[in-house]
């Protein structure tokens, strides 16, 4: 009886269109929250992957990135000088982090930052990210130079070979890096460590020391030693960062999930109210069908068919709209499985929204409908 259901929906076009639009928006919202969750999760995973085998030493109580951390450069150098820790000194360095602009929401990463790294240690933080233009290394010993991440280049509106002004000082852009899976690389303006210290008045200070264990299996042991020897400092490994990131992400992801639940409830409510009105208006028709021999089960299936058709017609475009949303957010596109899940979301909302009106329809007595004026 799908043909009857479709005819019923087409007869009441305005109501059907409004219901479809509501379902489309709800499904789109659900798909968007899934995309945003993907984005946050991928950003976190990519960021953390880089820190395998790494140890961050920074001021106790500070967060990551350590914008609010300050430790003495002498302390950092003393740690680097320790031979008992078995460090890979090529991949270890003191660093300065300065936030230039916050993210839109408190839990979102900064929009721009400056990172000071020792000359020759440009690869310590981000690995060998290649440059799209210019170089990914500081030339010689010049210290009034900067390497920009892809988004940082947009932020400062500068290309390789041009000058930018950071905190009142003019610096020469020697290179713009390719887009990295590490978000922090994309938003960073990387300057020589002494330049960063001078720019922001942090002479003799650094934000953190990034250490790389010579043996990745010794990370926990090295970090345990450092915690014991420097109790006022915070020693963070990749595991620690992951746990911290998950804690930080918990609230925004919960918020996203609540948005998804709200979208679902709205879809169910819209479908239910539309169909309840439709059933009430069609009491006479339903009674006639019952009078000429339609079973209650058939009546139920016609009403449920209408709700499922509304859900599908609204759900499929709503799902497909999630795809450009993912592109806008520069997130990976939803997988076929995720798209299918979003469509199923629409169908489940339709089924739940249609259950009560369908039940009401089955309760229509043929006799009452014949008396209906």
């Amino acid at each position, binding site marked *: *009886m799908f043909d009857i259901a479709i005819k019923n929906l087409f007869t009441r076009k305005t109501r059907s269109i409004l219901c479809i639009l509501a379902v489309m928006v709800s499904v789109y919202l659900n798909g968007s929250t899934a995309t945003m969750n993907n984005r946050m999760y991928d950003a976190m995973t990519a960021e953390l992957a880089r820190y395998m085998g790494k140890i961050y030493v920074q001021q106790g109580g500070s967060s990551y990135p350590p914008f609010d951390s300050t430790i003495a450069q002498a302390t950092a150098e003393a740690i680097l000088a320790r031979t008992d820790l078995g460090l890979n000194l090529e991949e270890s360095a003191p660093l300065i982090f300065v936030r230039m602009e916050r993210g839109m929401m408190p839990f979102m990463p900064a929009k721009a930052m400056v990172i000071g790294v020792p000359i020759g240690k440009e690869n310590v933080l981000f690995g060998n990210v290649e440059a799209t233009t210019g170089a990914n290394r500081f030339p010689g010993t010049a210290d009034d130079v900067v390497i920009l991440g892809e988004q940082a280049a947009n932020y400062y509106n500068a290309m390789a070979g041009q000058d930018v002004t950071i905190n009142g000082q003019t610096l020469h852009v020697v290179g713009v890096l390719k887009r990295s899976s590490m978000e922090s690389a994309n938003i960073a303006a990387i300057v020589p460590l002494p330049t960063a210290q001078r720019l922001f008045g942090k002479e003799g200070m650094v934000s953190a020391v990034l250490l790389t264990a010579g043996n990745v299996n010794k990370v926990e042991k090295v970090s345990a030693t450092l915690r014991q020897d420097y109790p006022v400092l915070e020693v963070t490994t990749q595991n620690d960062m992951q746990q911290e990131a998950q804690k930080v992400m918990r609230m925004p992801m919960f918020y996203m999930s609540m948005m998804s639940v709200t979208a679902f409830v709205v879809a169910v409510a819209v479908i239910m109210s539309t169909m309840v009105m439709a059933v009430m208006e069609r009491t006479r028709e339903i009674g006639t*069908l019952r009078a*000429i021999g339609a*079973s209650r089960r058939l009546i139920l299936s016609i009403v449920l068919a209408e709700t499922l058709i509304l859900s599908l017609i609204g759900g499929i475009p709503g799902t497909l709209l999630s795809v450009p949303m993912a592109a806008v957010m520069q997130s990976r596109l939803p997988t076929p499985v995720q798209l299918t899940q979003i469509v199923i979301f629409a169908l489940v909302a339709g089924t739940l929204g249609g259950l009560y009106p369908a039940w009401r329809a089955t309760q229509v007595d043929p*006799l009452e409908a*014949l008396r209906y004026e």
Partner: protein
Amino acid sequence: MDHIIETHDLWKVYRMDGLAVEALRGVNLTVEAGEFVALVGPSGSGKSTLLHLIGAMDTPTRGEMRLNGRGLAQMSDAERTRLRCHEIGFVFQTFNLLPTLSVLENVEIALRLAGVAGREGRTRATELLERVGLGGRMRHLPRQLSGGERQRVAIARALANQPALLLADEPTGNLDSATGQAIVDLFRQFNAEGQTIVMVTHNPEVAAQAVRVMRMRDGKLMGQS
């Protein structure tokens, strides 16, 4: 002759706001196969109530009721629904066509409910519509038809599954006399072919065209002619 319908001491009492309304009071009725019976009476006499009970759309308060020898009073809702689908055809005063379906589809739906779908259903529906004179209006919607035409569609729908019994509740009530007469003529035509018909009417001229007229007043059968 076989009894199509038998009722014995049939009562129907409605309870409204604590008051009991006796719509039928001990009705004994038989209708033989092939009869054309008219039930006449003033408004509130119980004739429509009796028709609804015979048509398995309602259940009696007490008494016995049989259709083709089968007891109706004890049937479940599902059994009564099947009965209405296969063995009873109903024609309503207000036509009660489904507004979103075409004329042809309105007749076909009765066949689909009985499990006759596809080409066979379409063929039978087409034949019936041609018999009632609507062969050229099959794609029209009910709102595009006159009252008389809609009633003819309703008759075709009621006869789609070759029911044992055709029930008509004031079939000419919403029609002018000429159109109403055309509907009664159709009934007489089908009755001549053996269709058993019970028709409720308050119009004595319409009733007089049936083979047997039974009068009702105050929930009781008063007599017949």
